[in-house]
Structure formats: structure tokens, C-alpha cells
């Protein structure tokens, strides 16, 4: 009973401080001066450098999804619906969520470890003493970069995933890429695409904010840094699903489905 109470308190405490940490992004992070140079550097690291990984997983995902889905569709005699089904699955859910999860695995952990070790070796304090707001310089730039880069990665990931799906379709039948794309987009609407696209901004924000939070409040020692990297990935991944759930409910309410 006692353990449960302390755990609950710890959870509430953690939620509160994470919220406060995130709120600081809007109070501190958006005010000048802007760390444009650092933001660009982070965009390069967080966005560009993640592309190969995202591209590889997206390609395999598209291929595997097609190969898995095909037999069932054949049984029901709707094999011709394969492109549109794949298209909807990728654009609405699999593209954004898989990309975000891979992104969380790569970025949340690296941000968590980086800020964690900076915290432990007092580099963050050194920044503070050197007249640079470390929240602005380290946290705001990374959160912003993650928020902006994940949507770009998702769009590219979707495209690569569709290419993988095309290869998968082509293993059994010969289809031109143009026909495949036309079939995919035939029944896709903005209602499919826009909510999925918009939620990736939130995914990116969550990954950045959680990675920074876990690193920023890392406890001392190598163990502490490892823990914060690990906790960042776990929490960010869970958060992605929570946001996904919220997003689908909101789009439902707005009638965008």
C-alpha cells in the first residue's frame, strides 16, 4: 500500500514537472534572442542524419505490409484493392507512427544522453554562468528541431514506404509505378492525410521535449545518463501512442474521418 502511494506521488510529481518543463518552452523558448545557428545545427543532426534509418525502416515496412496483406485480400477476391488499402494504412497510421517510434528511439535517447552527460559534467551550469540560458540554447532548439523535422521525415518516410509497397505489389503482378500511385491516391482524401500530417508535429514535439526533460534532470553518474536515455525512449514511445489516441478522437469529433 505504501509503495503504491509513493509510486502514485512520484508519477504525479513527474507529470507535473514535465508539464512545467514543457510550458517553459512557450514562455522562455519562443522569446528572443533566437539561437538560429544552434537550431539549424540541431535540425541537421535530428532531421537529416535520421533520414537513412527512417528510409530503411519505411521501405521494409511498406514491403512487408504488402506481402502480409496480400494473401488475405486474395482470399476475399479484392486483390485489386491492395494499393488503396496499403495507401490508407501507410498515410493514416503506419507512416506517422512507425516513423515517430523510430525517431523516438534514435532522437529521444540521443538527446537524453547528450543533455544528461552535459548536466552531469556541469556543462549546463557552465552555460548558465557564461550568460547563455541553457534552456533556450539546448532545450528550445532541440524541441523545435524535433517538432519541425519529424513531419519532414514522415512525409519522406511515407513516400519511401509506398515505394516499398510498390515493390511488394510488383512481386506478384506487374504494375507501373504511375498506376500504383494513381490507385493509391484514388480514394485518399485530405481527411486521410491532413490529420495524420498534423499529428506528426505533436509527435516530434513530444519526442524532443521528453528527451530534453529526461536529460536535463538526469541524476549524476554514467548510470544516471543511461537511465535518462532509456527512460526518454520509453516515455516518448508511450506518449506517441497517447497522442495518436487523442488525435484519432479529435479527428472523429471534428468529422474529418
Amino acid at each position, binding site marked *: 500500500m505504501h509503495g503504491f502511494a509513493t509510486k502514485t506521488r512520484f508519477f504525479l510529481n513527474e507529470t507535473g514537472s514535465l508539464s512545467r518543463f514543457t510550458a517553459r518552452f512557450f514562455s522562455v523558448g519562443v522569446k528572443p534572442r533566437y539561437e538560429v545557428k544552434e537550431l539549424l545545427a540541431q535540425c541537421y543532426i535530428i532531421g537529416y542524419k535520421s533520414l537513412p534509418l527512417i528510409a530503411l525502416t519505411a521501405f521494409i515496412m511498406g514491403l512487408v505490409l504488402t506481402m502480409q496483406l496480400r494473401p488475405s485480400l486474395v482470399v476475399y477476391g479484392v486483390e485489386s484493392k491492395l494499393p488503396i488499402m496499403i495507401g490508407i494504412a501507410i498515410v493514416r497510421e503506419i507512416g506517422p507512427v512507425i516513423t515517430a517510434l523510430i525517431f523516438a528511439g534514435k532522437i529521444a535517447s540521443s538527446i537524453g544522453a547528450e543533455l544528461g552527460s552535459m548536466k552531469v559534467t556541469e*556543462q549546463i551550469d557552465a552555460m548558465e554562468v557564461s*550568460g547563455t540560458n541553457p534552456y533556450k540554447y539546448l532545450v528550445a532548439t532541440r524541441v523545435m528541431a524535433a517538432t519541425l523535422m519529424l513531419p519532414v521525415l514522415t512525409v519522406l518516410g511515407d513516400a519511401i514506404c509506398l515505394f516499398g509497397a510498390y515493390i511488394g505489389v510488383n512481386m506478384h503482378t506487374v504494375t507501373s509505378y504511375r498506376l500504383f500511385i494513381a490507385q493509391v491516391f484514388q480514394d485518399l482524401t485530405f481527411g486521410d492525410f491532413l490529420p495524420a500530417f498534423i499529428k506528426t508535429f505533436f509527435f516530434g514535439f513530444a519526442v524532443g521535449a521528453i528527451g530534453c526533460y529526461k536529460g536535463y534532470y538526469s541524476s549524476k553518474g554514467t548510470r544516471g545518463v543511461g537511465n535518462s536515455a532509456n527512460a526518454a525512449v520509453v516515455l516518448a514511445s508511450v506518449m506517441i501512442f497517447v497522442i495518436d489516441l487523442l488525435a484519432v478522437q479529435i479527428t472523429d469529433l471534428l468529422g474529418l474521418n
Partner: protein
Amino acid sequence: MKAADITEDQEDLNHGEADVRPVIVIEHLYKKFGDLVVLDDFNLVVKREENVVVLGKSGSGKSVLIKCIIGLLKPDKGNILVFDQNIPLLGHDDLDRVRTKVGFLFQGNALYDSMTVRENLEFPLRRHWIDFSQQKVDELVMEALNNVGLPHTVDMMPAELSGGMLKRVALARTLILKPEIILYDEPTTGLDPVTAREIDNLIIRLQKKYHTTSIIISHDMNCVKNTADRVVLLSGGKCYAQGTYPDFEASADENIKQFFE
């Protein structure tokens, strides 16, 4: 305020009469972490151009003390007056202005390991209300590195440097804004006696050259002997004893004697 103003200010003060007004006044300072009481009614006054060495056992709260002075930690109670400004009550911008006049050497160097030595040294210069030209920045960087005898490391990464070199680069970064007060957290710990001696000499040389006021935390009795105008023993969260190095050496107090064995 432009960089030029800072140096002028400094010059004015430095060329004036020997000023005995205290630059750091610490009154009734309390600080605890949870149940652990670290500082318990600590008092200290540091005069201009004085080198004060703070002695104390590991975990006695020396680092906590100087972090309170620079505003990295907020004390629970008490005043810390630096240039007559009460640090715990200052807002962000005012604190930043005081901090340009205070250098801080971290116990673990705290060099930014993702940046080159040059970028590390440039970092304190990028305060938003200082507008240096690139030429001036380069000049300051090289001057600071020359002071510590490491001009050739300017484009190296911290990971490529030895422990002693790191300490000296960290010192260079601390000195780059020519602070009037420097807080050294164990500047010679972990160094061989020769390098430690160099660092001691550097501290003394800087004090002569720039007329700085220093608080030096150290366990290294050679360093204490070389640099101290006055020694303060921090024990039980209080200023347990103070005096000159010979006073301490001659003391019969058990707590003090420990450090000379």
C-alpha cells in the same frame, strides 16, 4: 554595456587607491538538500585583490558555497553581496551582468565536449548585450590561450587534450572576460606537482596582472601555501576558522591539524 566599457571600468578601479571595500560579503548563509544541512550560518567577507583559500573535507559544502556565490544554487536563507548586489534576489538579466565580472572554474572543467577549444572560449563572449567584432573575439581567444600556454590547441576538441591541458583550457575560458572575481573549484586536483605548480603561478600572475579577487577551493597544501593571503576552514557548515597560512600551520586545533599531516 560594451566590452570596451568593462575593461575601462576595470582599469578605473584598478588604478585607483588601494580599495579595502569588501567585494564579497556573505551573511548568515543557510543551505540544505532535503534533510542534509550543508551550510549552517556561514559568514565570510572577502576584500578586493585578496586571495582567500577555502579548506574543507570532501562533502563539507565548498562547491555548494561558491555555486551559491555565482547564483547557480539558491540559498535557503542569508545574503550574498557581490559588488553590493544581493545575488539571491537578482533577476535573470542583473545576475547575468554580475556574472560577467565573476569567473568560475568548475571542479570537473565543464568544457563543452561537442565544441572545439575555440568555440568553448568564444561561448562566454556571445552574451546578447555584448557585440564583439570577429577580430576582437579572435584576439581575446588567443590572449586567453597564451595566458595558459596552450595557443596550439585552439582548433582541437576537448577529447584530444590531457587532463592538465583541459584544466588550463577551462581556466582560459574562465579568464576570457577578464573577471574581477575568480572562483576556483580545486584548480590543481589530479595534476602532477609540476603542472600544479604552474597553475599556482598562473593564479598568482593573473592576480598581479589583472588585480583580481579570488576564492580558491583546494585540498592541495602546496597550492594553499603558494596562493593564500588568507585561509578559511569550512566545517559543520560554518566558517570554523580563518587566518594566514602560518597561523594554520601553527594551530593546535585537531580539525586544522588534519590537513597538515
